[in-house]
């Protein structure tokens, strides 16, 4: 059987990207980084010397984004030290932010090895109580779905508050296309059509801070491949636990994620990117 070659070099391809072709490992890593850079650049949101805080959650996509950011930080530092005459002005500063009750060794190693300035913080109970009162919550039926939604809402509130405390202009999240599609589906299932732009859009404003999701066009497959190709073993996140049986699923969020994942695995007519791109075309009725 004929071996498929990388589109850029002649090495055997190791990953196939729909609509973009075949890549070997090193060409794919370069492609991934340039795609991130293109998304940031084309958005024209971040200006020179802006402070961008990246919310690192320890997941595979978080590790991938940490690696990409760290690569570009080194690139900027090298350009500055060599006094190279770059026309590109987009040299923003990135810091990582990790919110946890107890920081584990793997996360610490990942943050330290990235070379990026980082902050680890554990919100106190008083802080959680304070923000629980003011964050956007759903309290109609008190079920697992609402609990999960309210928990995420509180996490976002705490992260935004901490990022504002650090004088950041942007908060960056590492959500990939499948997770955003599942979130969009669950938000619609909860009747929160007005949240679709905030859930799946590239940038939205929350409490005066702009939230960016530059990985909204990256698939889980691409991110997993990138993480395996670039991150060291001590940093790689743990494998996902086994899939839940449908009868044990208690929340709409889990059901939506399982539904989309099953559709994809069966090759049915569904495209997570199509769901995410809807947010670019829809607005709320006035």
């Amino acid at each position, binding site marked *: 059987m004929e071996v498929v070659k990388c589109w850029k070099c002649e090495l055997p391809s190791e990953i196939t990207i729909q609509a973009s072709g075949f890549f070997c490992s090193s060409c794919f890593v370069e492609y991934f980084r340039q795609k991130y850079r293109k998304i940031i650049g084309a958005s024209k949101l971040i200006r020179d010397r802006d402070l961008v805080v990246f919310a690192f959650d320890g997941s595979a996509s978080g590790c991938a984004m940490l690696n990409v950011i760290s690569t570009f930080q080194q690139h900027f530092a090298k350009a500055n030290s060599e006094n190279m005459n770059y026309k590109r002005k987009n040299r923003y500063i990135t810091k990582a932010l990790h919110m946890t009750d107890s920081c584990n060794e793997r996360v610490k190693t990942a943050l330290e090895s990235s070379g990026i300035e980082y902050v680890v913080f554990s919100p106190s109970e008083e802080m959680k109580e304070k923000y629980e009162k003011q964050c956007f919550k759903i309290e109609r039926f008190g079920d*697992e*779905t609402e609990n999960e939604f309210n928990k995420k809402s509180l996490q976002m509130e705490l992260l935004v508050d901490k990022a504002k405390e650090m004088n950041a202009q942007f908060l960056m999240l590492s959500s990939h296309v499948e997770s955003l599609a599942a979130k969009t589906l669950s938000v619609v299932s909860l009747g929160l059509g007005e949240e679709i732009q905030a859930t799946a859009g590239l940038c939205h404003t929350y409490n005066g801070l702009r939230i960016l999701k530059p990985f909204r066009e990256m698939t889980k497959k691409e991110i997993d491949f990138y993480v395996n190709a670039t991150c060291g073993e001590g940093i790689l996140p743990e494998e996902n636990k086994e899939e839940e049986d*449908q009868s044990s699923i208690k*929340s*709409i969020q889990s059901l939506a994620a399982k539904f989309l994942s099953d559709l994809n695995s069966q090759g049915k007519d569904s495209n997570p990117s199509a769901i995410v791109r809807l947010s670019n*075309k829809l*607005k709320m009725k006035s």
Partner: protein
Amino acid sequence: MPRKICENCNERAACVLRYDRSILCRECFCRVFEEEVHQTITKYELFKPGQKVAIGASGGKDSAVLMQVMKILNERYNYGLTLYLLSIDEGISGYRDHSLEEVKFHSNNYGLELKILSYKDLYNWSMDEIVAVAGRKSNCTFCGVFRRQALDRGAWQLGVDIVATGHNGDDVAETVLMNMLRGDVGRLSRCTAITTADDPSGIPRVKPLKYQYEAEIVKYARHSKVRYFSTECTYAPGAHRGHIREYLRAATKIRPHVVLDIIKAGESFEVKDGVKLPIKSRCTRCDYISSQPVCKACLLLEGLNTGRPLLGIGKTKEGRVKKYKTIKIESGEKCGKTDDCCSKEKEKKCEINDDEIETCGNPAAGLQAKDLEKLSIAAEASDLF
């Protein structure tokens, strides 16, 4: 254990559990159901006094319940409407022929005039013949497109002002999710409208049961002793909507309000300015509303009649159905599925070339272009357009 009492009348024994977990007796449930439909009709001003209304009747539970509820409300609240029944015979043997018997029963029972139009008369193709040539993958596309036009034509022939269909809340929620999964912004912005007012014939359609749960429609039919045909369409298994229906059923178990929540979310969307949407124009062949020069129905018919049944469906431009044959693998020959020869495989699939395809036996297949003139169905009905 004492029997639970109806939460509405506090007198009779409760026997119906609603989606909002309230429990009602049979009489109160039927009354509450009818009142909810009445509120939908009055809130959205679906009808005006003196109008002629055609109820799209398939014989299934939704249209059977709609017939009964419309009759009751028309008399109870003096809507002043004249009701008709309009049925479409798709030509699905073992399904549509039985369901039409129920429609005829209701027509006699309620004293409503019934009009039946068939695909065979309109398009010279029945669904059974279409599935025989096109396969079972895209049959819902044919059926949906043809039925939409057929309903309009039937409404014109009856001379009615409005067509009422039995689309329920679950149908609307499924449609919202389907359009989201496909990223179809145009349809997403329109699919939750309770009244569609952009038909070329000027006959709008309304969905009085838009906010009713499918499960409650079944309960109403049972408790009001409404006769209906309950078998699923022969060609329904495998349809894309089936997967979404499964999701919705699972979601309703977790959170019963999910159907109404999805409808509410769908109603809150509109398309941003500057987004490119299809432009409404008219079909150059049959003058039906279309965003393309030739409408979907004419395109599908052309495909059927020229031996290219997938014309206008999916990505295959030529519209031909791929056919495969299975041949045995000789010993030592690779099956082609994997790099290494898996000696376990004994057969492999090969595509049949065009010259090897046997004729499907349908006399309409392979018609010349001149025969397409016969298919300008709308031209026959000069009194319709």
